[in-house]
């Protein structure tokens, strides 16, 4: 069945590059990631040669850009009627959701790779902790993947790509926000400690931060892969539901 996963992956990846989508996405990402780091993150003013200013702002870039990659996954198939074609192919649903996810994740990986000149630049300017930067990239890629998977699940709920995008951005925003101090302190005053703890653990930001300090923690790996697998399963269930014809 791996051939059907590969067939879907190949088609989806080509689809990103057969339309302007991938090029626009990569151009915007390649421009915004350093721009945020230089201007908002005050890359030069910190007077330290590391990529922290960029990694600080990547999650917020992901909140907007990852749903833009994921929104077409199922909404477009439903809108164009090609879902009917796809559902008549003898492929298991996990191959369809997995192939779509891996293709989008590949594009996200290429986007991250485009920021490598900044990594070279900080090495030229000083002596950064390269191991921490490498794990930071891994964390960023995992975080991007989890937003893509959540976006794909939400894309399966609608035949309108704009609706899928807005839902995806909202979900990614909540996942990112959940761990911020002001959310937690607001909760801390009004909610049981157990709930605050739970919300904090739900936050993608907290798990991402661990990677940035050079730590690959098991719980953080489980968090991101779990979020990806659960979201893709939900996408598969929602699409399988469509065979029921609205029962």
């Amino acid at each position, binding site marked *: 069945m791996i051939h*059907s996963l590969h067939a*879907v992956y190949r088609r989806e990846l080509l*689809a990103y590059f057969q339309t302007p989508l991938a090029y626009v996405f990569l151009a915007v990402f390649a421009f915004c990631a350093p721009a945020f780091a230089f201007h908002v993150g005050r890359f030069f003013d910190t007077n330290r040669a590391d990529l922290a200013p960029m990694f600080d702002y990547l999650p917020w870039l992901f909140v907007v850009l990852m749903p833009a990659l994921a929104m077409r996954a199922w909404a477009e198939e439903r809108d*164009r*009627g090609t879902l009917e074609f796809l559902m008549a192919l*003898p492929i298991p649903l996990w191959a369809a959701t997995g192939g779509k996810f891996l293709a989008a994740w590949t594009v996200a990986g290429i986007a991250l790779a485009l920021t490598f000149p900044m990594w070279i630049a900080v090495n030229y300017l000083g002596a950064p902790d390269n191991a921490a930067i490498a794990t930071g990239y891994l964390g960023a890629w995992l975080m991007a993947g989890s937003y893509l998977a959540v976006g794909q699940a939400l894309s399966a709920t609608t035949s309108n790509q704009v609706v899928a995008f807005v839902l995806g951005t909202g979900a990614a925003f909540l996942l990112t926000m959940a761990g911020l101090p002001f959310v937690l302190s607001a909760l801390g005053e009004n909610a049981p400690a157990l709930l605050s703890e739970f919300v904090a653990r739900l936050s993608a930001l907290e798990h991402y931060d661990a990677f940035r300090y050079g730590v690959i923690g098991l719980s953080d790996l489980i968090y991101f892969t779990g979020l990806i697998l659960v979201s893709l399963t939900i996408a598969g269930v929602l699409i399988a539901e469509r*065979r029921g014809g609205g029962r």
Partner: protein
Amino acid sequence: MLVADQLIKDFGSFRAVDGVSFTLERGEVLGFLGPNGAGKTTSMRMLAGGLEPDGGTASIAGYDCMTQRLEAQSRLGYLPEGAPAYPAMTPRGFVRFGLRARGFSGDALMRASGLALERAALGEMADQPIGTLSKGYKRRAALAAAIAHDPAVLILDEPTDGLDPNQKDGVRQLIRDMAPEKAIIISTHILDEVPAVCSRAIVIDKGRVLFDGTPHDLAAKGADATVESAFRALTQGAGGVGAAA
């Protein structure tokens, strides 16, 4: 080769398909006829494994279309209603995607896609993005994808819709050529097509089978011995009965 047994499908409180049963053997070309909204497309989607029946079963080559979906679908070629295809892909890319998903690779993939594009008469359009093609070529691209893996059963939902007279003739000839080796269902609104292509006809309306027999027997039911008059007599008559019941 293909069995529909008491298929039922409800959409909310509306029963779209109400106990459709038939069997189809290799060598038969079945014309699936009925007015708009009669349940043709819904029945075909259930046979293709894209829609789960609320009652009854469907099977292809002995494999249940729901519980053994992958086995059933690997023996099926399906042209969905409206011939959907990915607009950014070329017909060649589209056909190859279907074949790859079915496990074709290497020489077998190249051979099968080349043959399918040739049989569907895509010509030079095989390498143009589907979004830029005319309706007729788009339909032929979807048809090529349906026949590429040489399936034992073909379900074609309005294969000649939107084609010009020459193209229609080409598709009919293609169906006749494939007929001895396969079990084929086509749905159509063009009743002239039935005696020209089909060895058997089923007329359905309001989700029920009203007639199942040869096109010759169907025509005999009409006032002036044409399929068209028979179709009108059956479906308009049924409308009256349905309203009374």
